[in-house]
C-alpha cells in the first residue's frame, strides 16, 4: 500500500479502508515513522481473532529495546485476521511497515473515529514537528 493512500492516527497507527463482502474492512498497521523511532523491535502482542474492539481501544502492544507502546484502533469492530507470522519475523515490520508488516484486519461496525485521522500530508507535518 502506498503511504499516501493511508489514514494516520496521531498515535502512529495507519488505517486502510476497503469494501468487503458485507461491510467495510479496515487494515491497521504502524507507520514507517513510528517503526523508525522504535527501531529495534523485540515483541508484538496481537488480539484474538473474533474479539470485538471499541474505537480507541488498545488492540495490542509493540515493544522495542528502548520502550513499549500500546496499539490503538480508531475504528470499532470485530477482529477478522491478525498477521501472527510477524511475531517471529519482526524485521518485516521494519522492512515493509505499510505492506507485509500490516498488523490486523477489522470488520468495521463503527467508523466514526476515522474523522479524527490525518491524511498523509497532515501526518507528515505532525512527524516533522515531533522531531
Amino acid at each position, binding site marked *: 500500500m502506498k503511504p499516501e493512500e493511508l489514514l494516520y492516527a496521531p498515535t502512529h497507527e495507519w488505517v486502510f479502508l476497503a469494501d468487503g463482502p458485507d461491510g467495510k474492512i479496515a487494515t491497521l498497521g504502524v507507520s514507517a515513522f513510528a517503526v523508525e523511532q522504535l*527501531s*529495534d523491535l*523485540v*515483541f508484538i502482542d496481537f488480539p484474538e481473532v473474533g474479539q470485538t474492539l471499541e474505537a480507541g481501544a488498545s488492540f495490542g*502492544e509493540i*515493544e522495542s*529495546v*528502548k520502550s*513499549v507502546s500500546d496499539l490503538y484502533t480508531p475504528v470499532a469492530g470485530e477482529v477478522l485476521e491478525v498477521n501472527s507470522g510477524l511475531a517471529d519475523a519482526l524485521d518485516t515490520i521494519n522492512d515493509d511497515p505499510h505492506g507485509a508488516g500490516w498488523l490486523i484486519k477489522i470488520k468495521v461496525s463503527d467508523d466514526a473515529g476515522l474523522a479524527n485521522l490525518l491524511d498523509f500530508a497532515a501526518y507528515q507535518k505532525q512527524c516533522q514537528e515531533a522531531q
Partner: protein
Amino acid sequence: MSTPLLQTPLHAWHAANGGRMVDFSGWSMPVQYHSIVEEHQATRTRAGLFDVSHMGRLRFSGAGAGAFLDRLVTRRVDNLAVGKIRYALIVNESGGVLDDVLVYRLADPTGTPYFAMVVNAGNRQKITAWIDSQLSGFDAAYVDETPTTAMLAVQGPHAIEMVDPLLAAPLAKLGYYTGIWTEILGAPCVLSRTGYTGEDGCEITVAAEMAENVWTEILKRGASLGAKAAGLGARDTLRLEAAMPLYGHELTEQIDPYQAGLGFAVNLTGREFVGREALQALKNRADAPRRVGLEMLGRRIPREHFPVQADGAVVGEITSGTFSPTLQKPIAMAYLPPALAHEGAEVEVQIRNRLEPARVVKLPFYSRS
C-alpha cells in the same frame, strides 16, 4: 521552570549525524544514531565509540588529597601507584551508596603526581557538595573539569588497534585499570584502559576544543574495521549484559555495597572512612535482599520498577531490564530475598497486566573470553 540541558563538546556532531538526543541526567545525549542493537553488536564484535563527556571529572590537588580521598571512599587509595586506577564507592554515614566512582593516580605532563576522580553524571552536584562538606581539615582542593574537557570511550575487540596509531605512547602496553598522560593526534590527553561495556578498550579525556577532531579521526580510522559511533542505549545494553551496576538503578542511598555484590570494593580494615562503622555492621546481615540476574522465558522486557513475584507475593522489583542482543532474550537485574537469590530460582515478573516467568541466573550475563 525547566533548566536548559547541558551539552557536551560533541553535541553538534551528534545532532548533525543522526543522534537522537534525549535528556540524560540533565545532559542532552545521543541515545542512539540508528539502531541500538547494531551499535551494541558493533561494540561486541568490532568497536564502538561513545561520548561519555557527561561523566563528572574532578581533579584534586594539595598534599592531603590522598588522605582526604582515603576518608571519602570505601577502598584505600592514598597508596595507589602513579598510573593506577581503582573502582570504589562513596557511602554516607549509614553505609548507603552515594555514588560509584573511579579514583585515578596520575602524573601530569610535567611529572607531578595528582589524584583524579570520575563520578556519575547524575551525581556530580551531589558529590561535589558532599566533598565540600568533608574537606575541612584536609590540605586538599579540587577542580571540576567536566565543563572544560571531553571524555570518549572506545570499546570493543578492535578498540586498541584503532586508537594506538593516533597516540604518542602505545596503548597496547597499558594494563587494565591503568592510565597515563599522553598525546592523541598531538593533543594532550589522559588515556586509561577502562570502560563500561564488558569489552577491552580505553577512555580518552581531552580538552573540550580538541574533542571533535579526536572523535572524527577515531571514527575515520575505525571505519575499515567496522567501528560505529554508539549511543547511551547501547552503553546501557552492554553494561547490563556485563552486569555492571548503574547508579539510580542497582545503586541508591538505600542500598549498601554488600547487597549490590560490591563487597570487593569495600576495604574495612586499617583506616577510618565515612560510613565504615555502618558497613562493618551491614557486612554480615543475612536477611538483606541481594542483587541478582534474571532471564525471561518469554519475549517481553521487564523494566525498572516492575514487581517480581514468587508464590503469589511480591518479593522485589526490577532495577534495570532490556533485551540482550547477545543472548537474544530479555534480561534484567533485581533485588531479591536471600532465599531466592540463587541460580535456578523461579520467579515471575509483573509486566503490565501479566505475570511472565523468569529464572535467576549467574551474573554476568556476558563476559568476554
